[in-house]
């Protein structure tokens, strides 16, 4: 399996080969945009706004109804599209640190740098919620009680998390869990 590029219906994983991995190891996960979701959000927002305008202009209701509708529409647009993630990246600088980036559709980029001295171990864990269960790549950090997820917003398939986990393990940040490593390699080959 080519570890530089993996594509699924929802995500595309790319290992950036622009720079030598000894200097900087860059992994991107790009969300394949679903037009349907954006369309639905726009339709709902339009519906709320139109309803507010109708109540105000035609039925002579209070302007607060229009205000509430416009507020609701803008919140819906912000949550549905503005907070929508375009890409998440992991930049591994061996023996220096790891930078975690989240790129949003609104253009905002959220960055979080973790120095290598703080990283105790990168872990692949199973997260269980009331409705589902999925793999999460997290970092155990020194003097931090909570785990730090590498990917804040996206729930990626295991085959995309494994090469990033291996890269984190090999970067001087934490020990290798070799029995999990070898078992996961076998799983990878069979996928």
């Amino acid at each position, binding site marked *: 399996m080519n570890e530089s590029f993996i594509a*699924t*219906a*929802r995500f595309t994983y790319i290992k950036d080969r622009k720079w030598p991995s000894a200097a900087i190891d860059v992994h991107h996960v790009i969300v394949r945009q679903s037009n349907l979701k954006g369309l639905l959000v726009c339709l709902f927002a339009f519906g709320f706004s139109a309803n507010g305008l109708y109540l105000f202009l035609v039925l002579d209701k209070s302007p607060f109804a229009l205000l509430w509708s416009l507020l609701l529409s803008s919140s819906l647009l912000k949550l549905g599209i503005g907070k929508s993630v375009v890409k998440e990246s992991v930049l591994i600088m061996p023996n220096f640190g790891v930078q975690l980036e989240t790129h949003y559709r609104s253009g905002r980029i959220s960055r979080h740098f973790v120095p290598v001295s703080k990283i105790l171990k990168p872990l692949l*864990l*199973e*997260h*269980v*919620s*009331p*409705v*589902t*269960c*999925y*793999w999460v790549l997290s970092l155990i950090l020194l003097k931090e009680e909570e785990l730090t997820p590498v990917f804040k917003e996206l729930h990626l*398939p*295991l*085959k995309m998390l494994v090469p990033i986990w291996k890269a984190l393990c090999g970067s001087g940040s934490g020990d290798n869990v070799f*029995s*999990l490593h070898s*078992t*996961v390699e*076998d*799983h990878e080959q069979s996928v």
Partner: protein
Amino acid sequence: MAPEKQRILMVSDFFYPNFGGVENHIYYLSQCLLELGHKVVVMTHAYGNRSGVRYMTGGLKVYYVPWRPFVMQNTLPTFYGTLPIIRTILIREQISLVHGHQAFSTLCHEALMHARTMGYKVVFTDHSLYGFSDVGSIHMNKVLQFTLADVTQAICVSHTSKENTVLRSGIPPEKVYMIPNAVDTAMFKPAEERPGGNEIVIVVISRLVYRKGADLLVEVIPEVCRLYPNVRFIVGGDGPKRVRLEEMREKHSLQDRVDMLGAVPHASVRSVLISGHIFLNSSLTEAFCIAILEAASCGLLTVSTRVGGVPEVLPEDMVVLAEPDPADMVLAIKKAISLLPEIDPQVMHERMKKLYDWHDVAKRTEIVYDRALKCPNQPLLGRLSRYLSCGSWAGKLFCLVMIIDFLLLHLLQLWQPEEDIDKVPDFVIPPVEISSAFDQEQDD
């Protein structure tokens, strides 16, 4: 031909860190099935902060699903709320068979329902006896009828329990197997030396609730203490009836003859048992009663009420049975005291080792799994006809519930196709060779 190795999902609201008969059963059965080469995964609800995936001894994987219990450790029944998580676990762990435990567990009923909708074979183990006439039992029996209408095979822990389950649920008796519980005889061993002296110690370890006959103890203990000045009681356990026992102790000035230990952790039960000569069980209803097995394994002579499946558990020379009546129980204790000189704890322990073994339970359960997997698959319409026979109104309601479940499953398959769910790799935990590790340490 040796049974094929399976991937089993055990489901119940009752599991570690809770302690009890059902919890023990699931744990020991899972460990023995793992030793036989099967893969076992347990699914239960979260207990406090214990939420997510945990691994226990032998690589036993446990999903503590964050559904909070709402009454008596049971998950809130939502009918369809657990469908997504159950489907995800069944697919990612590549389960071949689902085994639910305990009629009182809502998670078990929902899991079996969803597993049947997805086409899995299901086995159900009933651990309790229920009545027929009170409101609670009527509702419980209807729920059981719904679940067992389409279960592949069922297991009961005693013949009495099998009869009770068949009558309550209407399941054909040929689908029900009887596999008793067992006891960990390696853990429950008699003391090197039996407690000596003139004193006779009677041990009671149970939850102090109505069902366990705590009210009988209030009548029996003072009478026995009056008749036998050399008898002392040790009472372990806690519950709402503890207050009554404390009051009895005060009223009859038995503070130096009745020790109330409070809740006893399971790891400490053996140390309490081996300090006594006789074990007293006063339950008003029991499908099996693992407690008397533990006591017999520790070499204690048992005095018990003749209820439910208790008469099936121990040979006649190891137990003295009595009706759940204070006078009869006092007579039974009198008989037990007279039999004490004949009891050899080590001999009793050796007999228990041969009679009850969790490995034997696992092998018998394996046979049930094998038979369940050989049963033919039925399409939805065939399965719906089984629900219709549950009652004129209830049957139609059950059919509607299953049809909605079927539709929701297909919606879920469109929303999250099976290919999008990662399969979990099997983690091989290398067995620890204790003797060789010790030799290496000595060489070092």
